[in-house]
């Protein structure tokens, strides 16, 4: 496991998709600094050369130069390049190109004041149904204990374990107010809005630990709403996965037989 060094600039990028984002950020900043220095030099020269002093007269005629037009056109072209060349493709890939569900680990991430609940589907890859009538302090996600799909489900609070180099699909939602699932090291951010479940996906490329920072003011405890993402290698992740208690596991395994019925029910709901 590597330790992350934080400093005055961006933390390291440990995601598969973050490279493009970083590149865009660097490029835009180089452009900004260059433009600002250029402007600044012109402004300074103008102020010194045309300051009021004895024997100096203002010109009634304005300066005529094509240069500003060229600069403006240059800026427009560069912005078009930023949009079409970088921002569109990066964003579109980030938004519309999910990994195949078979290859990915799908989890539900549900914000609440002031913790992150991570709902794992268990071995069957299916989430148990949820309803607010089952919500309690012991079942914060309101997972239906009678749904056969919830038998192997488990959830974690503020501890989000993921395997390295495996695509993760996270359904981001919230129980109460708007939160935002922000992970600087993974270059990921998505508002968690009640009434919506928005899928995002990412792949961590190194093992280690870093923070989920709530990125939308969510109340008194907003600044304490920190989750920890632990990226494990496959072996450690498998071990952790096995160790998790399954709170909805029934003693009698007979119920697991009626596996196909609830699925049609689920589509109805």
């Amino acid at each position: 496991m590597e330790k992350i060094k934080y400093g005055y600039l961006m933390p390291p990028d440990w995601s598969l998709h973050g490279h493009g984002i970083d590149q865009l950020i660097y490029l835009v900043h180089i452009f900004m600094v260059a433009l600002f220095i250029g402007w600044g030099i012109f402004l300074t020269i103008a102020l010194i050369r045309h300051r009021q002093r004895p024997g100096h007269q203002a010109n009634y005629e304005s300066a005529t130069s094509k240069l500003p037009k060229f600069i403006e056109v240059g800026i427009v072209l560069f912005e078009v390049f930023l949009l079409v060349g970088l921002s569109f493709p990066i964003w579109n890939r980030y938004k519309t190109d999910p990994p195949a569900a078979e290859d990915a680990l799908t989890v539900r991430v549900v914000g609440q004041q002031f913790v992150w609940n991570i709902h794992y589907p268990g071995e069957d890859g299916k989430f148990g149904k949820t309803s607010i009538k089952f919500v309690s302090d012991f079942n914060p996600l309101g997972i239906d204990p009678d749904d056969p799909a919830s038998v192997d489900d488990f959830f974690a609070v503020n501890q989000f374990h993921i395997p390295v180099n495996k695509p993760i699909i996270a359904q981001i939602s919230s129980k109460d107010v708007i939160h935002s699932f922000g992970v600087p090291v993974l270059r990921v951010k998505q508002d968690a809005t009640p009434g919506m479940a928005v899928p995002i996906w990412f792949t961590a490329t190194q093992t280690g630990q870093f923070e989920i920072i709530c990125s939308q003011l969510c109340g008194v405890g907003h600044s304490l709403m920190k989750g920890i993402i632990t990226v494990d290698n496959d072996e450690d992740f498998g071990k952790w996965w096995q160790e998790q208690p399954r709170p909805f596991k029934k003693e009698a395994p007979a119920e697991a037989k009626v596996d196909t019925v609830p699925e049609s029910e689920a589509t109805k709901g």
Partner: protein
Amino acid sequence: MSEAHHPEPGFIQKYIFSVDHKVIGIQYGITSLVFLFLGFCLMMLMRWQLAFPGEAMPLAGKIFTNGMPGGVMLPEFYNSLGAMHGTIMIFLGVVPLGVGAFGNYLVPLMVGAPDMAFPKLNAASYWVYFVGGMIMLASFFIPGGAANSGWTSYPPLSVIATAGQTYWLVGMVFLITSSLLGSVNILVTIIQLRAPGLSFFKLPFFVWAQFVTSFLLLLAFPPLEAAGILQLMDRVAGTSFFMPSGLVVSNTPMEIAGGGNAILWQHLFWFLAHPEVYVLILPAIGIITEIIVANTRKPLYGYKTLIYSVIFLGLMSFLVWAHHMFMTGMGTTMSNFFQVTTMIISIPSVVILTVLIITLWGGSIRFNVPMLFALTFLPMFAIGGLTGLPLGLTASDIYFHDTYYVIGHFHYVVAPGSLFALFAGIYYWYPKAAGRKMSSFWGKVHFYGSVVSINLIFFPMLFQGLAGLNRRLYDPTFYANGAAIQDLNVLISIAAWSLGAFQLIFIANFFLSMKFGKKVNDNPWEATTLEWQTPTPPPHGNFLQDPVVCRGPYEYSVPGEAKDYLPQNEESTRSEQVA
């Protein structure tokens, strides 16, 4: 319209319930300056918590017994301070100062009118604003304190928040109503009351900026007023406009109808709040244009370009609002549309800056206090605009959204941008209103002190944003990336307090100059626009003779003239051959 023959009114009639646009402008000005200082004080308190999280602040425990017991700030108090800092600075400070004070005082003078089109409506607008401000202030003293859901007031948080939010919404309804009344008045005044000969393309650029600003206020505020009332209903009448079904707060299902949409509020809010950015910036651009031209002693380069740019800016500002919402989960069609419009809106801003910088070329530049502030606006606004780029591009916004980068960005636009322009305006037009100049020495102390401090506040914030530090965090050291750069927070806080100290100099200068300032003639800056062609201070009714305008606003250094400026209403000294 002329009320010159009325008997001399008493003190209350003259200074408190006046219908004279100049008195109302000064009322707006003083009130909004008080609010600006108050909003800044809230921030100076927050800066203690950000620099020294959880440590007791000397004396504070005695003053803020509820919010800071024992001197240690509570998170709910911190959130209140944050929400109210934003609300006060924008809705009670910069907008009333830029539009209410400068618009009211100067627009009738600059168009050569005896008063606003609707003087009583004008007074009503001020008093509605005043009531709105008092409601906001009162909310600090109720149980639970003032609104604490951010100045953006996103539901469901704002709907389940303490009673302060109800005060906030009621206060906002008053403030919006006031802005609507004021904007109608400015629009009608500009359209109807221009002096003979003063065609639209002879108006000073400041008037154009106010014209476009008023349209923005008129068109953008009603959606927020409606949204504010809907949120109020959600809070007090049990409706669910912004409350989706299935909400569970503290593991208890909420007793609400549900079926609403939390994102709807954000659309309605930002539909106002993006044009609002231009409401904050356009009067500022108008002010610095007047000051830069007068102190460059040459005509404005590209007068019409500038006008078309602000009209375009105004129109486009209605089409960019969702760039504040890229992280809500919007799809590619919508986000791509909004990032394209966002890039497009940067172009008129670039044009405006270019026009103003080129205007300097070939001038004879005077570096007086208003000019120093006005010139500083240019690079500061440039930083503010440029840092908008990575936020406006969705891909980089994934990283920067809701970090201190955003705070640095918009403060560069509004604080060393708009506010410096407003300071410039105060130093520039103070002699017209008071008959005396503000001290130029103390003005320069105020200027240099403020420039250094304010950059030490906002520039480090860009680095905090790069490091991924989030805004609105009560304790930034709780996160590894924040703890690593906590020294920046200490630096920023010290700079903020020093900025506060330099404002005390301004306050003293402002009041003492009324009595001790150097007396000036009617046109101390030798400027061309009509407000300088009145007695000082202008009497009720403004002009001794109704002005007749015979030329454009910026005829400086005309070849062959006796003096280097030609007022808009004055005959040329040489035989009339200026086309």
